[in-house]
């Protein structure tokens, strides 16, 4: 009996070590990491493939769902296996402060004057503006939710809800649902009472929340009827409307917007090619093509000016959509993301 146990244990060990050795890889092509889905498919068409044709070198693309810790762990483990990564605003600031990214040579990128000021960073160049907004199926809900109070109201709008897993955005949404005015949002959230209040409000909805991590999930949940309202990336909603003829609606008031950036991981194998790629993806003529495929706002002003009005109406950067939208407070999340993420994870597992 003991022999059997030992044999089994050794067998598993041997298996694990072979897998480990087989996992080692050779020199690698320029690896670009986006957020998957419709956005990355569009990026692939207008940035990745044309750039690869121009430079004559192949590229690899991968996708991720964000999380500063993922990058931290990658850098801690030694030479990173990604070169260019699309990161969210606070990931950009955190990693730049922590020395995880290469400093960008904006002279080489060359379009600093054409960029909106917040899209220019010493470590990152703006990818696009996007919104996290309420989405619902317009065929199932005729008179849809108007704000986050409605989102929390499961009597008025029966069914489950889907939210992006993580502390960021959900604490804000919870406070909005609890009656906090958008202008005071981050003042309230900066206090301990405010954080407690947000978690208490999330408690109310917890049994009815289906959490998502990848941007494709909430639209699937809406399509299958598993949830009735979801917080979704705006581009996914118009994307599925176009691709599958759905009638999904977005609620722009109280949606939250932010800008993503391209960064180059420190010590990346292909960092020169990576900078060339960022320069390519920042040019006005290339950026102008992206909103034709997916509804995100462009940081290059010259590119933004060329967008046809019927497409511009669906972009997070459209003045009409921005009117009641709330910008993500990046500074707040730079200082608090670790503590609040830890608390959120504990809350989630309880």
């Amino acid at each position, binding site marked *: 009996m003991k022999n059997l146990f030992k044999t089994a244990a050794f067998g598993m060990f041997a298996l694990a070590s072979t897998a480990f050795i087989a996992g080692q890889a050779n020199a690698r092509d320029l690896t670009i990491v986006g957020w998957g889905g419709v956005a990355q498919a569009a990026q692939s068409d207008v940035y990745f493939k044309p750039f690869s044709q121009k430079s004559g070198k192949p590229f690899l693309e991968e996708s991720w769902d964000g999380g500063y810790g993922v990058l931290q762990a990658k850098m801690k483990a030694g030479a990173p296996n990604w070169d260019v990564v699309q990161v969210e605003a606070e990931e950009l600031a955190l990693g730049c402060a922590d020395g995880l990214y290469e400093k960008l040579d904006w002279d080489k990128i060359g379009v600093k004057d054409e960029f909106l000021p917040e899209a220019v960073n010493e470590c990152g160049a703006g990818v696009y503006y996007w919104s996290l907004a309420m989405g619902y199926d317009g065929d199932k809900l005729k008179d849809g939710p108007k704000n986050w109070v409605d989102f929390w109201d499961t009597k008025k709008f029966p069914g489950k809800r889907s939210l992006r897993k993580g502390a960021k955005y959900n604490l804000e949404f919870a406070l909005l649902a609890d009656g906090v005015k958008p202008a005071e949002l981050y003042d309230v959230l900066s206090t301990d009472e405010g954080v407690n209040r947000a978690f208490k409000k999330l408690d109310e909805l917890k049994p009815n929340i289906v959490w998502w991590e990848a941007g494709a999930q909430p639209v699937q949940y809406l399509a299958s009827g598993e949830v009735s309202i979801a917080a979704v990336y705006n581009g996914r909603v118009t994307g599925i409307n176009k691709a599958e003829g759905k009638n999904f609606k977005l609620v722009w008031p109280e949606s939250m917007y932010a800008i993503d950036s391209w960064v180059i991981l420190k010590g990346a194998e292909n960092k020169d090619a990576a900078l060339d790629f960022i320069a390519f993806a920042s040019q006005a003529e290339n950026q102008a093509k992206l909103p034709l495929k997916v509804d995100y706002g462009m940081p290059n002003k010259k590119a933004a000016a060329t967008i046809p009005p019927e497409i511009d109406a669906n972009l997070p950067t459209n003045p009409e959509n921005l009117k009641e939208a709330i910008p993500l407070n990046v500074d707040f999340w730079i200082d608090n993301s670790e503590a609040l993420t830890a608390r959120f*994870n504990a809350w989630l597992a309880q």
Partner: protein
Amino acid sequence: MMSGKSFLQKSGPFLLVAPLFLFICLFFIWPLGSVLTQSVSDNAVARLLPETAKVASSWDGESAPGEDLQAAFVTDLRAATDEQAVGDMVRRLNSAQSGFRTLMSKTLRAVQETPEGLIDLVALDRKWSQPQYWKAITDALSPTTDRYLLAAVDLMRNDAGEIVSQPPEQTINVAIFGRTFWISATVTIFCVLLGYPYALLITVATGWKKQALLAAVLLPLWTSLLVRTAAWFILLQEQGLINSALMDLNIIAGPLALIFNRTGVIIAMTHVSLPMMVLPIYSVLLTIPKNLMPAAASLGAHPLRAFVRVLLPLSFGGIAAGSLLVFMSAIGYYITPALIGGAGDQMISSFIAFHAQNSGNWGMASALGIVLLVVTIILYAVYDRLATQRERSA
């Protein structure tokens, strides 16, 4: 010639085990050692602030520190050129005291701009007048720490250095450990209840029936864990095979909640672990002479009594080995609860993976691993003790 031969004779056995020894050192002892070191090491701050460490003891910890500590701190920051090391330090400090990151980027910029002389830190940012920021620095100056190990069991040190429990909204690990052992124990019990009769059935079956029964155990064992779990995902989901079959047969009116909860996790983990229970029991049952049960019957024992008094004690070794295998491997389950379970069914390995891959907190990941290892070793020791006692009394 003679001496050469005796050397070979002497060293032969050692040479034979050398690869194994090397293998164990490389893949077992070394990783374990580095995990242990990770869980207590805390040099991200100490290695960059040697001057600060020298004068830190002079500070009373109450008010804003004097000029010497501030000057030493600025000197250290000037000397720190490795950006990544500075980043590690900032991260470590920010995890002790929120707000450090923006404070440090401000301070580092000022240090770069003023390469000589004193910098009035308090004028730069009012935060530097608050003792908790300095406390975060002085607390981090020791190269070793017990904060990860304490945090792994929901404890922490308060400002006075006493060990206290963490605020309730942050406690999580003890509950997760409890959940992990509870799920593993439940799975083990279900495996015994299902596996023993099945092993008995294989033992008494003959010919193609025996082969078919054995194949039913071995085929899943040879199939990837991920595939088996994904299969359960398909079977258990709301519109899945099980629910639709039960609804078509009018046994239930609406779909049962079988997935994203504890029920689903137990069902899938039991199925995945079953071969590890059946095979040891089967191998022990094979060695028990077939004529014992008829002998007991001939002495007038009821079949049930004969089973309890004869077969069960003799096969206990198989049950114990199977239970140990199932329980120990169940403790480390990760993929099955992740796919089949909800947020409240995740086991400790998913939290270890979270700290290792999604938060870059290797200290915490290592500490959780160490606690898991220690608890498992204790459980094994208890089992070993019980097993030997039983053998002695038998």
